[in-house]
């Protein structure tokens, strides 16, 4: 069995699972864990878009 994810879906899955682990391991209580997890997820995906647009600008 083989899975072929697109660039974005691979980045999405990576961001999701990494954010969950970061949230749990880097904060003390549940509320802070959720907030930090969401923050990491947004930063991961935001970074993907920023890097994507930066590469688009460099290419032009």
């Amino acid at each position, binding site marked *: 069995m083989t899975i072929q994810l697109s660039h974005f879906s691979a980045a999405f899955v990576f961001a999701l699972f990494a954010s969950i682990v970061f949230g*749990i391991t880097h904060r003390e209580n549940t509320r802070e864990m959720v907030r930090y997890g969401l923050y990491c997820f947004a930063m991961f995906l935001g970074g993907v878009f920023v890097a994507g647009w930066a590469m688009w600008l460099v290419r032009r």
Partner: protein
Amino acid sequence: MANQTAKTTTKAAVPAQPASMMAVIAPAVGWLIPGAGHMIQRRWIRGVLLLVSIGALFVLGLLMQGHIYKANGGDILDMLGFIGDLGAGGLYIVTLAMNWGQGAVAFATADYGTKFMIVAGLLNLIAVADAYHIAIGKKQ
């Protein structure tokens, strides 16, 4: 000055945490099975979330035809890849035993899979450190 001396005295008076068996068992079990270090300390939800997250990342990496690194003394990146993969513990051992993770150059996404597995291992090492901190009482 006197206040500073009092603070120093207070710090020195706090006894060190006694080393418990859990401080050894939790990281060891957590390395072998991702999230298990939290589960044996009754952090069930955190343990399950860690198991699902790290396990899914590793399995997805395998399904994307990622390459698993074996112990080697060659290229520095190969050695670092091995250290990352080794962090996944039981998942890495099973993968080696079943001879999975040979990597297929035919797939462009195979390199993503390789990185997924390395990151899963590294995330598990963070989870192991977290389980240790819970065991010694540094974290709730």
